[in-house]
């Protein structure tokens, strides 16, 4: 059996910095000291595993998973699908993907959200699934609405779905957000602009996927997610001084 490999280091120039002054909330919530670099130990290259016994089959269908019997969530019906890959371009199978989002009016079902858009009684706004052997996942949901938030006096989040992925190890744990092709709010969002590079923003923007739509029923967007890659241990690391 090959050794459990360590992970390629995170590219901290590709990810958002902790301190991003135009996203105001980050100012008081960002460390000022440098992170201490730690080569992976067993604590980082292992991680929790989940299986189909941990979730229900309908958990990935947000149009129906909170709806009254015979009813469904209001909004533009979409399929969000794609693959979870690692930086070696290999699929990450059997990993838990969790999502949460606002409803079609831009309102979250959360006790802290007081936006004037109404709650949809048939929409809860969260879902989860486990990738198949090819790293593939899919959700059915409604396209979330844009909503205002307190950053500038007049700030609006582009439509987005929050995505949480475990991968195979604690070092791969990631939360990101999925945006939608063509959204005119994308270039104006202080949170999205924490991503330093335009290619990084494009990687978080789901593509309209006409081939995956269901005619007369549901439109589709493709969103692939990339997790950190694992080193193949061809040769063992030589320790400095050993």
């Amino acid at each position, binding site marked *: 059996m090959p050794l459990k490999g360590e992970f390629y280091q995170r590219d901290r120039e590709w990810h958002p910095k902790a301190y991003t002054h135009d996203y105001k909330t980050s100012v008081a919530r*960002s460390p000022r000291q440098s992170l201490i670099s730690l080569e992976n130990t067993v604590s980082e290259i292992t991680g929790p595993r989940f299986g189909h016994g941990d979730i229900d089959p309908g958990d990935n269908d947000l149009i129906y998973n909170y709806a009254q019997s015979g009813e469904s969530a209001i909004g533009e019906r979409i399929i969000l699908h794609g693959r979870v890959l690692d930086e070696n371009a290999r699929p990450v199978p059997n990993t838990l993907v969790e999502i949460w989002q606002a409803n079609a009016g831009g309102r979250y079902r959360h006790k802290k959200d007081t936006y004037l858009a109404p709650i949809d009684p048939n929409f809860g706004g969260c879902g989860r699934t486990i990738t198949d052997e090819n790293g593939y996942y899919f959700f059915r949901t409604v396209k979330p609405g844009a909503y205002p938030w307190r950053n500038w006096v007049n700030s609006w989040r582009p439509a987005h779905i929050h995505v949480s992925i475990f991968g195979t190890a604690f070092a791969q744990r990631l939360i990101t957000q999925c945006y939608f092709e063509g959204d005119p709010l994308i270039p104006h969002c202080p949170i999205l602009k924490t991503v330093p590079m335009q290619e990084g923003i494009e990687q978080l923007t789901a593509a309209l996927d006409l081939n995956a739509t269901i005619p007369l029923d549901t439109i589709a967007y493709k969103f692939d997610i990339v997790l950190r890659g694992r080193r193949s241990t061809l040769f063992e690391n030589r320790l400095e001084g050993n």
Partner: protein
Amino acid sequence: MVQKLETLIESASQTAGPYVHIGLMPTYAGNAGYYDEEIGTTPFLDESKAKGEIVEIVGSVFDGTGWAMRDALIESWQCDAGGVFPGDKGADPAFTGHCRFAADAESGEFTLRTVKPGSYKGRGGVESAPHISLWVVARGINIGLNTRIYFEDEDNANDPLLNRIEQRPRVNTLIAKKTGDGKYRFDIRLQGEGETVFLDI
């Protein structure tokens, strides 16, 4: 031009936002019953059968102004009392090693109830002192913050990570203080005086 590497780059992180609990802890968000079973509500499959000492770690996550954040969410990952990680051979079958917990919306305090981890031998046969790995997310945190909890009543003298920290007083930011039998206090300070050591893992 040279050959192209057939590699990808990790999707950029984005903040978990203020409503992270909807997705990861629906009961906390006020949506109890959304799922039959929520992920990570406890690291125990059967607490009565778990090996080792049960400990409760209480703390807060403070922002740079000293305010205890009400919306922080934390995940923990650790080995069992014998130093074996769940999923590995010989691991305690009553223990998952993973827990999700959040700062209370009123008080800003979190509680992690788990087993005290054992120690294990890592790189070069060096033994790590018992520790719990943490990952902290919240609105305003652009990329999840990794840190560790160590315990003041354990021998931390030879831990390879703690020995890496040049400024010795900063080591204390990673050490939970004992407040009673099986009870510890561990505060996380994101910024400023007493800023917690965060890790690039």
